[in-house]
């Protein structure tokens, strides 16, 4: 069972991310927020829990107020059976637990970052093909 990364656009503009920070997520506004993820264990196996290690940064030094991470299968119109929890580890590093993909196919990891003083969250996403 393997996972292939399909969308990594935004990487070129995500200069605030360290070089070895993982797979870059697609960001609606990379200058505002950029994020990269690593999965543990990797590769992701269908039916097996995994942890998402997230690196988040802002080239414009935007202050993060709230982060929500989740995953869904767009084609099936459903998400996971579990609600992940994200913990700040400091210096833009986060750890999200409670992930399990219960079906093979295309999944999308979604990240909603709300900055202080702005109620509309920034959306980031990473599409994965999981077998």
């Amino acid at each position, binding site marked *: 069972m393997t996972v292939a990364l399909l969308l990594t656009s935004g990487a070129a503009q995500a200069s605030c991310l360290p070089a070895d920070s993982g797979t870059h997520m697609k960001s609606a506004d990379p200058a505002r927020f950029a994020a990269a993820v690593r999965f543990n264990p990797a590769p992701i196996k269908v039916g097996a829990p995994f942890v998402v290690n997230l690196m988040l940064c802002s080239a414009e030094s935007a202050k993060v107020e709230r982060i929500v991470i989740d995953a869904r299968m767009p084609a099936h*119109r459903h998400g996971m059976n579990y609600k992940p929890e994200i913990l700040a580890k400091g210096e833009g590093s986060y750890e999200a637990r409670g992930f399990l993909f219960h079906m093979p196919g295309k999944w999308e990891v979604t990240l909603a970052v709300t900055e202080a003083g702005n109620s509309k969250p920034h959306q980031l996403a990473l599409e994965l093909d999981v*077998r």
Partner: protein
Amino acid sequence: MKALAAWGLLLLTCIAGASLTTAQQPSLLLTESEISQMLDHGPWPEPATRDPSNRASGNAEAIAFGRTLFFDKGLSITGTVSCATCHQPERGWTDGLKRGQAIGLVDRNTQSLLNIGNNRWFGWAGSSDSLWAHSIVPLLEPKEMGATPAHIARRISENPAFLSSYKAVFGISPNEADAETTLVNVAKALAAFQETITSGRTAFDDFRDALARGDRTAAASFPQDAQRGAQLFVGRGKCNVCHVGPAFSNGEFSDAAVPYFIEPGRVDPGRYEGIAKLKSSPFNRLGKHSDTRDEASSWATVHVEQRHTNFGEFKVPSLRNLTLTAPFMHNGSRATIEDVVRHYSEINVERLHADGERILEPFKFSAREASDLAAFLRTLSPRP
């Protein structure tokens, strides 16, 4: 003219002969993509794992004690039924009935115990997060064994052999004043035994392993109808969306458009109720009876969340051992493997409660396709 006819007859004979020879040669029908998907269903058997929430898991004395308890009718309040009343070894550890029949008629089909140890959730609704916690359910359920914790503690105390085994395994005496602990320990011994109930290799496993080592000649001996069925399984049938991995189940829950009325006016909410029961259970992995505080043991209980789409969802069963475990579905409403294939072939998507999910559709299998798919499913059971 006669000569021409003779030549024609000879030619026909040659063609027929060639066709016969070709038909007799087993061939590997699967594409590389299909082969790759077959490999995901093995190897088998899976390695045995111990349950860290159960200190009796894997303990030989506990397994022997659990085996004895499993067949003991004295654990029931009436003294008339044991675990083995519904989970009969000679019937694939189920009972052959549409719905279980113990002290009373149970609401759901009796699930097989084969390979139960490697599950994440237990029961059709996943109301338990460990095998020991789920073993408590039938002990106390009035329609099943109808016992009380005090009855269980008395049964252990009054039987010298049980008393001796209990002390040996758990290092304490059963205590009616703390009957709940005795109940939990009895359930942990029962779970230790049930973890040893596994099924062996099948024709499919030989096929899958031949594919894994690149032995196309050996793989080609897998029956042609079963190979066509395997192609349907990972192709148009999309069966492997839910029936994944070596056990042919993702261990989760799905709405398969099976009616969820137990009887007129009484609904089985399935997973929706199962999550509520799990979260409120004093016997879940977050409770005081769990033998570990390790987060890896309880992560699923922490993170599972009840949603309205859980209504009418039931456990995705393993497809191994189907020839031993009929009838099928949570309510035992499908008598044969062919009936199950027909269910998915003609599925009524209007019955699906989970809105928006687009996995199932009427597959409209031809008679030959249905037969091929059933032939493949039979290869997932031990050879007769």
